[in-house]
C-alpha cells in the first residue's frame, strides 16, 4: 500500500512459451487513471506481456503487483475478480450468440442481481450496441465487435482494463470510433493499458508510452515524449 | 506431490468402480455361479478347478486333492498318467457365453468321470484356451495346447471358422480332434480314411445332413419364405444351402438377410419382410438375440407367418429370455439334435452344478467327453496300455457308443457320426417334441 497511485507494478518479469523466452526482465509501473500504450515491433513481446499479467502465460520469474496484491501466475478468474479485465487481440466474442447474451457472458463471474441493469447502462454508453441487441455477434462489423468486447470487459467494473490491438484490421473510420470509446472508458475512471500497432494514433491519446524492444523496456515516457523521440519515430512510427 | 495425487485418484477410481459393482453383483444371481450346491461331490469339483484357473496357490492345494482321489481309486501300480484334453473356446468377446457352456459341460463330464475313478484309473484334465472366436487365435490355441499343455486330444474349437482354420495344424501336429457341435458341412469334407485328414472327427450332424430334413419339413407348409441368418460362417452357409433346397422343392425364397451378433434393431429388416408378406420365416440367430428379434417381429404385428428357427433357439435359453411373455415364442419350430426334456437327470445335475439350465452346447460338450471320448480312451488303454494321441485317434475310429439324446455314435468313412435329430416346437411356453428324424 506504499503507493496508492500505482495500480500495476511489474518487476523483472520473465515469461515465454516452453523453452522460448519472450519477456526478459520487464519492469514497469502504471499509474492509477492513466491511459498507457505499449508499442514495439512484431515479436517484441507486447501481447505476451498482457497475457502474462492476466495469467494466461506462465511467468518464470518476477512479480506482478496489481492493486497491492501479487497476481503473478494466478488464474485468470481470480485476476478478473480483483478488477483487472483483458480484451485479447483478434475476435474474442461468441459469434453464434446474440449481443445481449455476449454481454451476459462478459459478466459471467458476477452473481449479483444488478447485471441486467448494468447491461442496460452499457447500451446507454454504447448506443451502437443497443440497436444490435438481438443480432449474432459474428454478424456485426469488426468495429462493433471490438466495442462489444470492451463492453463485455467493462461489465465487471474493472479498475484496470488491458486491450490488445483494438484497431487491428479495422477500417479508418472505425478506428476512430474505437479510440473514442477507449477515451470514454478511461474518462469514466478505468485505467487503460493497450497494445497497439497503430502507434502514432495510440500515443496521441495516451498519458504514458512504453516501447518494448526484444522483451525488454526500450523507452518510456509520456505519450508526447515517446511520440517525439527521434529514435522511436524512426523505428516504430514510420518516420 | 501433484503426480502422486493423480495416481491416487486413478487407483481410487478403479477401486471404487470394482467395489460398487462388486457389491451390487453380490446381490444378484452370479453370472458364473460358484459351486455351492451338491456338497458330496466337492472333492472332485475342486480337482477340476485346478486346470481352469491356473493360479499357483490353488494348484498346490488342488494337487493334494487329486492325490487323495487317486489313492482312493488307484490301481495297484499307483497313480496313472492323466488324460489331458484341450479345448479352444471363445472365453472373451461378444460370444464368450458359448465358451462358458462348453467349459461347464466338459468340466462336469470330467468331474463325473474322475469321481468314478477316471478312465481305467486315468483321471481326465481339461485345458481350456481362449480363441476369442478368431481363426488365427484358434491356431495359437492349438500350438499352446499341444506344445505347452501337452494335451492328447482336443475337443471342439468353438465355431466353424475357427475349426476349419485350426484343422490343418492339428493334422500337422497329429493330435486327434473331435468336433461336438460345429455344423458347417465343409469340416468333414476332407476328413477320414481315404487320404483325408484322419485326425478330425465330428460327433454331431452337419448342416448338410440336417438341412435336408428341415427343408422336407418346411416345404409342405409354405409357398413363400424369408430367411435371416447370423452373419457367421455356419449360419450363412446354412442359409444359402437351405435356400437352394427350398427352391428345389418349389418354395419361393423372397429374401435372405444377414444380421450381426448383438444387433439392436431388426425393425428395418422386419418391415421389409412384412412388405414381402411371406408364408414363413426361417431364422438362424443365437438365442439371446433371437429373443430381441422375436419381440420386434411381434411388435410389428407379424403373426400369420410360420416360424422355423435354425440355431437352437428352441431351448431353455430362449425360453428364459422371453419368460416375461412366453407367448412370444409360440409356434417356433426347429429341427435340432438336442432334445430338452429327454434327460431330466442330466439337466437336473447341470442346473444344480452351474445354476443355469443346460443348453445344446453344454450337453453336446458333456456327452462327447463323457461317452465318446471316454469310451475311446478306455479302448486305447485296453489296446495299447496307454493314452497317446495316436492310440486315441485309432480308438475313436472304432468307437460305437449309444449316447443319450443323440443316439448311436459311430464314425463313417469321413469320420462323421450320424446322430438322430428331432423336430421340436414351442407350445404354450413349453418345448414339445413333434417327431424324430434319422440323419443316416
Amino acid at each position, binding site marked *: 500500500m506504499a503507493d496508492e497511485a500505482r495500480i500495476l507494478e511489474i518487476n523483472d518479469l520473465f515469461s515465454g512459451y516452453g523453452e522460448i523466452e519472450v519477456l526478459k526482465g520487464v519492469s514497469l509501473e502504471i499509474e492509477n487513471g492513466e491511459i498507457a500504450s505499449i508499442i514495439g515491433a512484431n515479436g517484441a513481446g507486447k501481447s505476451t506481456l498482457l497475457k502474462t499479467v492476466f495469467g494466461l502465460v506462465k511467468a518464470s520469474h518476477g512479480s506482478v503487483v496489481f492493486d497491492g496484491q501479487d497476481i503473478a501466475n494466478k488464474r485468470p478468474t481470480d485476476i478478473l475478480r480483483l478488477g483487472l479485465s483483458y480484451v485479447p487481440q483478434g475476435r474474442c466474442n461468441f459469434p453464434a450468440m446474440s449481443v445481449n447474451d455476449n454481454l451476459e457472458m462478459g459478466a459471467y463471474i458476477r452473481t449479483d442481481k444488478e447485471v441486467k441493469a448494468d447491461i442496460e447502462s452499457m447500451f446507454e454508453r454504447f448506443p451502437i450496441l443497443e440497436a444490435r441487441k438481438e443480432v449474432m455477434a459474428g454478424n456485426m462489423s469488426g468495429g462493433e465487435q471490438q466495442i462489444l468486447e470492451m463492453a463485455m470487459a467493462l461489465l465487471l467494473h474493472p479498475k484496470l482494463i488491458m486491450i490488445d490491438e483494438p484497431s487491428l484490421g479495422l477500417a479508418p473510420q472505425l478506428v476512430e470510433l474505437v479510440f473514442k470509446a477507449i477515451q470514454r472508458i478511461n474518462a469514466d475512471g478505468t485505467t487503460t493499458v493497450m497494445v497497439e500497432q497503430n502507434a502514432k494514433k495510440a500515443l496521441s491519446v495516451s498519458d504514458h508510452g512504453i516501447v518494448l524492444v526484444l522483451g525488454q523496456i526500450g523507452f518510456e515516457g509520456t505519450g508526447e515524449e515517446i511520440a517525439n523521440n527521434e529514435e522511436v519515430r524512426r523505428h516504430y512510427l514510420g518516420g | 506431490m501433484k*503426480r502422486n495425487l*493423480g*495416481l491416487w485418484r*486413478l487407483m481410487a477410481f*478403479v477401486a471404487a468402480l470394482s467395489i460398487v459393482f462388486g457389491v451390487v453383483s453380490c446381490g444378484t444371481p452370479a453370472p458364473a455361479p460358484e459351486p455351492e450346491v451338491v456338497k458330496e461331490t466337492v472333492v472332485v469339483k475342486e480337482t477340476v478347478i485346478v486346470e481352469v*484357473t*491356473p493360479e499357483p496357490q490353488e494348484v498346490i492345494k488342488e494337487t493334494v486333492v487329486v492325490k487323495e482321489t487317486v489313492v482312493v481309486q488307484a490301481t495297484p501300480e499307483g497313480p496313472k498318467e492323466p488324460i489331458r484334453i484341450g479345448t479352444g473356446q471363445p*472365453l*472373451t468377446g461378444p460370444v464368450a457365453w458359448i465358451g462358458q457352456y462348453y467349459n461347464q459341460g466338459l468340466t462336469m463330464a470330467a468331474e463325473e468321470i474322475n469321481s468314478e475313478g477316471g478312465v481305467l484309473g486315468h483321471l481326465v484334465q481339461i485345458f481350456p484356451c*481362449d480363441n*476369442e472366436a*478368431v*481363426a*488365427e*487365435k484358434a*491356431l*495359437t490355441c492349438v*500350438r*499352446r495346447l*499341444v*506344445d*505347452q499343455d501337452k494335451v492328447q486330444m482336443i475337443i471342439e474349437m468353438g465355431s*466353424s*471358422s475357427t475349426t*476349419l*482354420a485350426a484343422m*490343418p*495344424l492339428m493334422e500337422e501336429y497329429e493330435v486327434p480332434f473331435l468336433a461336438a457341435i460345429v455344423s*458347417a458341412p*465343409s469340416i468333414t469334407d476332407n476328413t477320414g480314411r481315404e487320404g483325408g485328414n484322419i485326425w478330425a472327427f465330428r460327433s454331431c450332424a452337419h448342416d448338410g445332413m440336417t438341412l435336408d430334413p428341415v427343408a422336407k419339413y418346411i416345404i409342405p407348409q409354405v409357398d413363400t419364405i424369408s430367411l435371416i441368418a447370423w*452373419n*457367421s*460362417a455356419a449360419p*450363412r*452357409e446354412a442359409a444359402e444351402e437351405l435356400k437352394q433346397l427350398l427352391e428345389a422343392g418349389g418354395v419361393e425364397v423372397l429374401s435372405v438377410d*444377414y444380421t450381426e451378433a448383438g444387433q439392436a434393431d431388426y425393425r428395418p429388416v422386419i418391415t421389409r419382410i412384412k412388405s414381402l408378406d411371406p408364408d414363413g420365416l426361417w431364422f438362424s440367430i443365437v438365442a439371446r438375440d433371437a429373443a430381441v428379434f422375436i419381440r420386434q417381429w411381434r411388435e410389428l404385428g407379424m403373426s400369420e407367418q410360420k416360424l422355423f428357427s435354425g440355431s437352437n433357439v428352441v431351448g431353455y435359453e430362449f425360453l428364459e429370455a422371453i419368460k416375461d411373455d412366453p407367448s412370444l415364442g409360440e409356434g417356433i419350430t426347429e429341427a435340432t439334435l438336442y432334445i430338452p426334456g429327454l434327460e431330466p437327470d442330466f439337466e437336473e445335475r447341470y442346473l444344480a452344478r452351474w445354476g443355469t439350465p443346460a443348453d445344446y452346447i453344454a450337453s453336446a460338450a458333456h456327452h462327447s467327453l463323457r461317452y465318446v471320448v471316454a469310451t475311446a480312451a478306455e479302448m486305447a488303454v485296453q489296446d495299447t496300455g496307454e493314452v497317446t494321441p495316436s492310440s486315441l485317434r485309432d480308438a475313436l475310429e472304432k468307437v460305437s457308443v449309444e449316447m443319450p439324446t443323440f443316439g448311436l455314435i459311430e464314425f463313417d468313412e469321413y469320420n462323421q457320426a450320424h446322430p438322430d435329430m428331432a423336430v421340436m416346437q414351442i407350445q404354450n411356453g413349453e418345448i414339445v417334441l413333434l417327431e424324430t428324424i434319422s440323419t443316416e
Partner: protein
Amino acid sequence: MTSARNLWIPAALSVALLMVLIGLPLVIENRYLVHILIMTGVYCALALSYDLVVGHVGLLSLAHPTFFGVGAYAAAILSTRVASPFLVNLVVAGFVAAGLASVVSFPFLRLAGASFAIGTLGFALIIQLVANNEVWLTGGTDCTIGVARPRLTLGPWIDWRVSSVSDYYYLMLIILLLVVVLCWRLTTSRVGRTFISIREDEILAMASGVNLLKYKTFAFVVGAFIAGSVGAYYAHYSTLACPEALSSYMTIALLIMLFVGGVGRMRGVVLGAIMFTFVPEFLRIAPTLRMVIYGVLLLLAIRYMPEGLDGVVTKWWRKLPLARTLASSGENNQKAG
C-alpha cells in the same frame, strides 16, 4: 546420445543381439515358445511400420491394420487361387497395400488431426465389413484358408522349404531385419529429419519449404507397404487370412505398443511390441483381467511417461555408472579425434 560418438559399442551390441536371435531356436525346444517369438517379430515389424506414420509424421491413422489385413488377403488369395510363390506374394501384397494407401491418402491426408483419425477409422470399418461379406473374394467369416507353405529357391543353390516353426522363425528374422534397416535408414536420413519437423510443427515445416503432403503421403504409403508385406508373411505362416486381421482390436494393440513403448523411437516401439506379445503369454492371468491391466497401463503410460518405456529405460540407463563411463569415454574419444 549424439551420432558422432563411438560407433563400435552399439555395433558390437547389435551383432551380439543378432547372434543371440539366430541362436535362439537352437536352444529352445518348445515349439510354442518359438511361435511366440515369431508373433513378437510380426508385431515388432508391424509396430515399426506404424511408427513411421504415427511417430514420425504425426498422422494418427486408425487404418494401419487394414493394410496388414489387405496384404494378408492379397497373399492368401494369390497363393490359394494361382499358387504363386511366396516371394511374389510378399512383394505383391506390399504393393496392393501401398496402392490402397496411396488411393485413400489422396482424400484423407487433406484432413487434419482428429478428422484424419476418425476418417481412417471409418475406412477401416468399411474394409472389414467388405471382408466379412464379400464371400466370393475373401471367404467371409470362413476366412481364406489353405495358404501354401513358402518355398524359397535361388537357382540350383538354394531350395528352402519353410515348414517347421524354426524355419518360419528365420524367415521372420530376415523380414524383421529388412524392416528395421529400412525404418532406420528412413528415420535417420534427411527424409527422417523432415518427418520429425513435420510432427513437431507443421506450419514451421511448411514455412521452411517442406512439401507436407508429399512427405506425409510417402510415410503413409511406405508404412502401408511394410504392413502389407508383413501381412503376407503372416498369411503364409498362419496359412489363412481372416477378417479379424483388419479389426479395431489390432489397432488398439498397436496403439498400446507404440504409446507404452515410446512413440517415435525405434527402440521404444520394439520394446513395446515385446512387452505386449511376449510377456503376456507367460503371465497366465485370465484374458479379461489382462485387458484391464493393459488399459490401466495405457492410461498410466500416457500420463506419466510421455516418452514411454523407452524414456524411462534411457533415464535409468544414464544413471548407471557403466553408462556414465561409456559416455565420458565417448566424449574423450571425440575430443581426441
